[in-house]
Structure formats: C-alpha cells, structure tokens
C-alpha cells in the first residue's frame, strides 16, 4: 500500500473542502477502500475520514422516514432500526461479520455500489433519498450500474432517508465464499404500491423487478408472481452460478421475501 496523508475533519464543510483540494478520497469504514488500496487498485495522496463528523452519524426519525447518517455503521443501523424498520435492520445485521459491521457504513456501501452489496437493494426498494453535501438524489436516479452512481467527483453522501414501508423483507442468498449476495431481493410494500429491488444478479447492478411490483401491488402474496418469469439475458454468469440460476433465484427469493414480509 502506498503512503498517504490522513485527515479527520469534524464538519461536513471541512470534509468537502479537504476532498476538493488535490488528490483526495473519502474514507468511511474502510472495509472496501483499504482492501483495494492494499491490492494497489486504489490510492490517493490524502484520505479524508468521514467518521469523525458528528452530523453524519446516528439514526433518527424525521421528515420522510428514518434519517440515517452516512457514516453510521452497519452494526448501529442493525441495532437502532430493529423495531422501526426490521427488514432494514436484518439487512444491516447480515452484512459480513461483526468486524465488518462495526466499521463499514451505509454511506460507504451506497457510494461504492458493489453489484453484490446489500444496501443498494434496501435503498432502492425503500425509495430512499440519498442526501449529499450539495443535493438530494432519489434512489431511482442514484444507481447507475456496476460501481457507478450519480455522485460527482468530490461529492459526499451525508445521510440517507428511508421511508418506512407497511411491510418489507430482505432475503439474501449468500455467495458461498464472500457471503455477499449471490442474489438478494428486498421487497417493500407501501400504501402506494410495492417495490422490489434485486441485487447481485444483473450485469447492470441493482434493479427493480417492475413486473413483480405490478403483480404484488395487485395481490401481495407469493402466488401473485408464480406465473412470472425472469429473463436470464442480462444476468451475471460466473463460477458461483449461471445466468439462468440467478434468474431463478430472483423469483424464488422474491416469493420468499413476500412471505416473510
């Protein structure tokens, strides 16, 4: 790993300033970034830690739902939303291992947008709002493919607002080695309709399964999607599963999520 400078600002403004001067990169839990730096695949002259910024940490109820600071750890989310949003708590509590959950953060996960990560499906199915240092981005506009998001250079997520559905569930089928999602499905039922977001499966990253949403909005039961089929055409195929297998998982896990919700 190459040498770097480290700064730990106390406010969002200071962080943004540090990030926009020279070769700098945001560091949150470091669970992705540090590993990629060790492999020589990432690196910056300055790392700007976000975990010392009080206004970016913690969970509270507010306008539009749960406000979760971007630098809040998975473990904190799992604990704090256990009663207010159990499906999201389960998602956070199922990430990695205790070490990863105590360091990794919701903002880091959403900024990274790993195609096999869990949070993107939770945010997309919830219709979350990604709040940054300069604007608010709807989840539907935020995710733009593998590791790609709507964030601009030097822009940081400060918090995420999760509307709380009437019913929801996240079902993750683990990739046997990494235990990331081989495929994961988050189903959220709101008064206005059902949203179904799928991670781990598509070559385009997290996506909404709109056919299932339509069917489930009319009839929120596993039976409602039994007649649907998922096109394997754009699914990921790798040593852990073929495209057809992933297409199958999307449907099986969606049904299970509906039953669990």
């Amino acid at each position: 790993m190459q040498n770097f400078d480290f700064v730990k600002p106390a406010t969002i403004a200071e962080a943004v300033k540090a990030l926009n001067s020279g070769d700098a990169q945001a560091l949150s839990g470091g669970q992705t970034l540090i590993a990629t730096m060790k492999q020589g695949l990432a690196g910056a002259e300055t790392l700007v830690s976000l975990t010392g910024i009080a206004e970016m940490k913690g969970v509270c109820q507010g306008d539009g739902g749960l406000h979760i600071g971007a630098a809040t750890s998975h473990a904190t989310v799992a604990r704090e939303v256990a009663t207010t949003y159990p499906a999201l708590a389960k998602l956070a509590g199922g990430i990695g291992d205790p070490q990863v959950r105590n360091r990794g953060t919701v903002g880091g996960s959403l900024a990274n947008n790993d195609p096999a990560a869990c949070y993107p499906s939770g945010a997309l199915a919830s219709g979350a709002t990604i709040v940054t240092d300069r604007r608010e981005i709807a989840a539907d506009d935020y995710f733009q493919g593998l590791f790609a998001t709507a964030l601009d250079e030097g822009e940081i997520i400060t918090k995420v607002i999760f509307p709380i559905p009437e019913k929801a569930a996240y079902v993750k089928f683990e990739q046997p080695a990494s235990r990331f999602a081989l495929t994961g499905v988050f189903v959220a039922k709101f008064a206005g309709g059902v949203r179904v977001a799928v991670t781990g499966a598509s070559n385009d990253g997290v996506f909404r399964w709109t056919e299932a949403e339509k069917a489930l909005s009319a009839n929120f039961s596993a039976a409602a999607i039994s007649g649907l089929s998922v096109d394997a055409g754009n699914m990921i195929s790798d040593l852990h599963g073929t495209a057809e297998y992933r297409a199958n998982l999307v449907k099986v896990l969606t049904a299970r999520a509906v039953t669990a919700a």
Partner: protein
Amino acid sequence: MPKDYGIGASSKRREDVRFLTGRGQYTDDLSIHGQAHAVMVRSNVAHGKIVSIDTSAAAAMPGVLAVFTGEDFKDVGGNPAGWLIKSRNGEPMREPKRPVLAHGKVRHVGDAYAAVIAETYEQAKAAAQQIADDAVIDELPAIIDMKAAAADASNRVHDEIPDNICFDWGWIEDNRAAVDAVFKSAPHITTLELVNNRLVPNAMEPRASIGEYFPGTGDYKLTTTSQNPHLTRLLVAAFVMGIPENKLTVVAPDVGGGFGSKIYHYGEEALVLAAAKKLGRAVRWTAERSESFLSDAHGRDHVTKIELACEKDGTFLAFRTETYANVGAYLSNFSTATPTFLHGTLMAGPYKVPHVYVNVKTIFTNTAPVDAYRGAGRPEATFSLERVIDKMCRELGLDQFEVRRKNFITPDMFPYTTPVGLAYDTGNYQATLAKAIEMADVAGFDKRAAASKAKGRLRGMGLSTWIEACGIAPSHLVGVLGSRVGLYDAATVRVNATGNISVMVGAHSHGQGHETVFPQIVAERLGVPESSVEIVHGDTSKIPFGMGSYGSRSLAVCGVAMNKAIDKIVAKGKKIAAHMLEASEGDITFEDGKFSVAGTDKAKTFGEIAFSAYVPHNYPLETLEPGLEETAFYDPANFTYPAGAYICEVELDPDTGKVDVVAFHCADDFGNIMNPMIVEGQVHGGVGQGIGQALLENTTYDENGQLLTGSFMDYAMPRASDVPFYNVDYSCQTPCTHNPLGVKGCGEAGAIGSPPAVVNAVIDALHRGGMTHVTHINMPVSPGRVWQAING
C-alpha cells in the same frame, strides 16, 4: 470413570495455552537483528518465455540491497521429486528440473522468476513491482486441461516433454488382462466419470522463511514453516544448494497448520539462505495470502473414470479405473507418490474384490504444483470407490448397507492381501458399519425425511465405508517401489538428573498436539507426572534424524520409536537398580515408577535411579555407562490401516439447490486411543475439510491459466455454520498388530471418509425427491450445480 492421566486420558492440550493467548512463536514472529526483507516477483501469466529481466531500475530504488533472478541459480541443483515412478512401458517418469527461480520460462501464474531484498518490506515490494514492469515475458498458450495437454505434442510445459505426460502408470500392470476379462463377461457394469476437485490448502499461517549465515563458522540457519525439518534440510542442503548438512540447521518453530503443504521444500527457502550469505544479514520472507493461493502446493485434482463389475446381487467382481492426475507445472516432492502408491494401492477399499486395475496418467499443466494434501491419494481412491458403489446400488435397486456387508473382508480373513498389493493386518468393518447405523438412527430416517418434506426440503442419507493406509513403510518396500527416502522415525528420551524428562522427536507438531500426547505415553510408561515431560521438536540441531509429520504417521511411527527408547530406559534402569539394591537384574521389576526386587519390599524410585545415573557414586561403572538417555529408530513392518463407516444426512432446498449437512456420524477404528479428546478434534477437523471439499472448495483456473479463485472472496472455505455437530465414535478398536502401542493414526481419516458420504447423501435426497435423472454432481456440490443438475 475415564482416565485422567497417561494413555487414554483426555489430557488438555498444553500447547493451546500459548497458541490461544498469542504467545506462540511462529516464523514471522521472530525478529533478527539486522534482518532484511525479501519479496518474490511472480509471473502473472501462466506460460511465457522470459525474454529479458531488466533489474537495473529496481536495483537503484531506495533500500534495495540485492536482486536475484533465475540466472543466479541456474548452476545450483533442482528441487527433486522424492519418488521415482515407472510407466507401464518400463520407462522412468520424466523429471524436469525445478529451479529455485524460474529460468528461461515461467510455467504458472505465481511462478517466481526474481526476488528483491531490501531494508524494508515496502521497499522490496515496490522494487519487485518495478521488476515486474520491466521484465519482458512473451506469453505462450496456457496448457490447462489435462486431456488436451496429453493430446497436443506441440504445446509443452517443459520443452523436453512432448506430450506433457510425466508417467503413465499401471497398477498392477500384470493384472490388467485378467481384469479386462472379468469386465467382458460381467453380469453388471457401473461406470462413473468424476472429478476430484483441486484444493488450496490454506493453512492459517502462510509459508515463511528466515535465512541466516554465520561467516565466523560458515554455518547456515534456516527457520521455516516446515512439517519435517530434517527432510527440508536434506533437500535444501544436499540437493539444491550443495551445503554440507552439518553446516545447516533447520528450525521449524510453531507452525500454524500444514495439511501437507508444508512437507515440501520450496524455492523461497533456498533464496533466503543464498541472500543471507551474499548480504551477511538475516533475510526474511513471509507469503501474503494471495501468494499462498498461487504458490503453495495444491491438493487432489484428478479426473477419473471408474468402472465396477459385479453380480446382479451386488457381489463385486472387479474395479477398473483410468485417472488423469494433475501435477501442475513442476514435480513437488511427493507429487508422484500421491496419485500412485497412496491412491492405486487403496483401490480395493475394505472389500474382498478379487480383481482391480488402476491406471494413472500424470500430466504437467501451467498451474501450481499439486501434491499431498490431508489424505493424499486415499481420499481420491475412497471417493471413486464409494461413489461408484452408491451408483451401482441405485442401478440395481440394492440396499447400500447390505451391499457393503456382502463385500467386506471379514475379521477371520486377516491378514488379508488385496489385489493392489497391500496386506491389511487387522480390522472389523462390520463392527464400524453397525455402529454407524446405530449412531445415525437409520431406522428413524423416514420420519426425519417426512419432517423435512413438510418444510419443502429433501432429506438424503449417504454412506461411506472407507479404509486408509497410514505410516508409509517399511523402508525397504517403499525403496523397491521408488521412494528415494526412508520412512522410519526416531526419538531420544533424555532423563535429566532430577528425574524430569526431555524427549527429542523426529515428528513435528503443527497443530496435532504432540506436546500433549507424547508425554502421556512417557508418563504412563515411566510412572512420572505428564507435566515433568517436555517434547522437543522442530530443530535439526536438537532432535534425532526423523522424517517429520504427514500421512498420519506421528504416533504410529515416531510414537513407537519413542516407546522403544523408553524400553531401553527401563532396561538400563533395571541394571542400575540391581546394582543399588544388590539383587540380580532378572529379579528387578518396574511398575508405577518404582524398581523393586521381586518378592521383597526393597525398591528404588525412578527419580533415585535417574539421579544415580548422573551422580554415579554407587554405580556399576565397570559394566555400565553413566547417564540415562536413549535413542531409538523405528521402521514399521507394515502400514497401519484405520477404517470406518461415515453416515451423512443432508437437507436440500430444491428451489435454490442449497445443501445443508444436518448430521454427520463417524464410527472409526483407529486401534488403541492415546487421547480421546485429541482424536475427536482430528476427526472434526478432517470431516470439516471433507465437507469443504464436497460442498464449497473450488479451485478454478480459466483457460488462460489465471486462478479465478485466488482469494477468500471466491474460494469458499468451510465455516462453523457449514458443519453440523459431529457425532464421533472410536469404540470399535482392532489394535494394530505390528506396533507395540496398537495405534493406527487418525489425522486424515475425516478428510478421506467424508466427501463421498456427503455427495452420496445429496444424490439420495434428489432421488427420494423423484429426480432420479441426476446420477452424479461434481464437487464442490454448490447450490448452482445442484440447481443446474435438477433442471437439466
């Protein structure tokens, strides 16, 4: 009441106190004054011609002390294969030189072709990257698929070997015609093509080595992660570097697991020694985890076609196999013995099958070397046998238990010579099978299956009745079969003047628990507390010339050598006691730590005798040397043959293909048991590895020879949640007949017996669910593969 002391007690593992409190001293924990750091430059292509390696920029980088390439070692010896195999046509195997650093060509991703020594690790690493950037290596087509490699004479891993075949071995070639004849007329033949998946050993501690050179004496010292320091010394000194053995000390301190991968000598060991001499400084190297994936010797990797000829009632008539065994790019030290004499000789299993023929073609490919890994050849044999028997039972509608019973060698038939050349001394396969059936509550299976079905899951039960051969021996026989080493072991028992005891052993403990178990035997035999006995191992300057630990041999070979040395101690003690007690030697008895004159109350304690041996004031000096220290070497008369019956139960989710092992029952016959707790631990670990192989571990090279599973992100190791609470029994005991401890060895059993039990259970679950079109799924039986098999 279970014993709390000596042989048969579950004495707590004394070494765990330091391991679990971070006080172990592993190679990488040692810090030597003035040490420099080595980093290897490894090929990122599978096959390539080295055009040039410009090291000038790297050599000028900050902190860089020296740079080595293959050129620097081209005149030293190659790392040899330890076993010469002859092909069916009588020709000796092809043995390409395995250099310290690749020279001329690189032959697998991870093949080291240069090394940098620098003041710090970071500096060495940066310079290594510079060399990788500056080296010109012309990529050649990678040779990955074994059958394609053997069929294509134009593309060669080693230019001098046209068909990439190391050898084509027949066992026993003279029996081939008779076996073929049986197949021509057999009432039923079952055929199965299967893959025994390649495994990455993944010891918790990566390989590490420190080289030192002492100019004052011309001595070298190598501290390294080895399972057998004397063997490593022999290889690095005599074969590779041309250093006299007496000028090299090899120390293997605490070693964090090996599973076979640390038996072998690797180029990094020679490199750090050469660098230490050149620089006059200690030079250290520790593998990164990704280097372990690329450069540790891998295990298994067989592609096999097995055929079983039988009567319609399931009576075995013959087995015939054809196996392609991958040796990777170079011959690692035991790589030629593993697919042959540790595999073909086990191909009769515990069965009285009259005819067996085994053919193994060993192929060079542009992949990491493959060698012995926990079980080494015997898991491959067991998997082939137990899978094809299971398939036969399904084809003929026969009961799997009944078929095993019908074909087992019966207790009255021992000693029993198999058609593949082994002489089983003792066993009782009926007993372990009956025990396993009882443990697994086979009678209650249908009820459990119904409960699973109610949850939408399919339940299956799989059986494996396995046998293995431990403690490879005797030396004169293995010599005839091509071994280039002897396979004895040695121990020195040194009774100190104050009565406590140091035992120097040739075996090496890297997790097994020798430091606990060996003292139990000494304590039992000499009537001293276990805590007064210390085991010394892993340092060639302290221990006698033993062969180390692998092949479940430590207790069955080295433990017996130690027991022989104890016999000598007792015999000498009797002589001393006879003198001190003024009795004749024949009247002295030794029991519970006391030498007594038979029929009297005259006695001397063990401590008094020891003291007298070192302070020989009242001592028969004219006829007896002072001191109480004895060494024994032991070369066993035969292998030992542990065997057992394993029953696995799985639940399978037909919608996702996920398999959960819900129960695993092991009924093993290990002969006499020295420490039940440690035996259970060994079985747990072995079965865990077997479940890993069966369900999770997948070493995949793509067609360009890139390792797709080069990290734990893609290489799935078994975790606690993947294994059930094991049900382990070792009460069926037929003690080994040719060693005085009656022990057989238990270290590899779990990994040998378990994979077929798991896969048989998966096939059983599918068949019970009506999916009888699935006759086999290759390991690892991953969810994706199961689902694909179900859905055609």
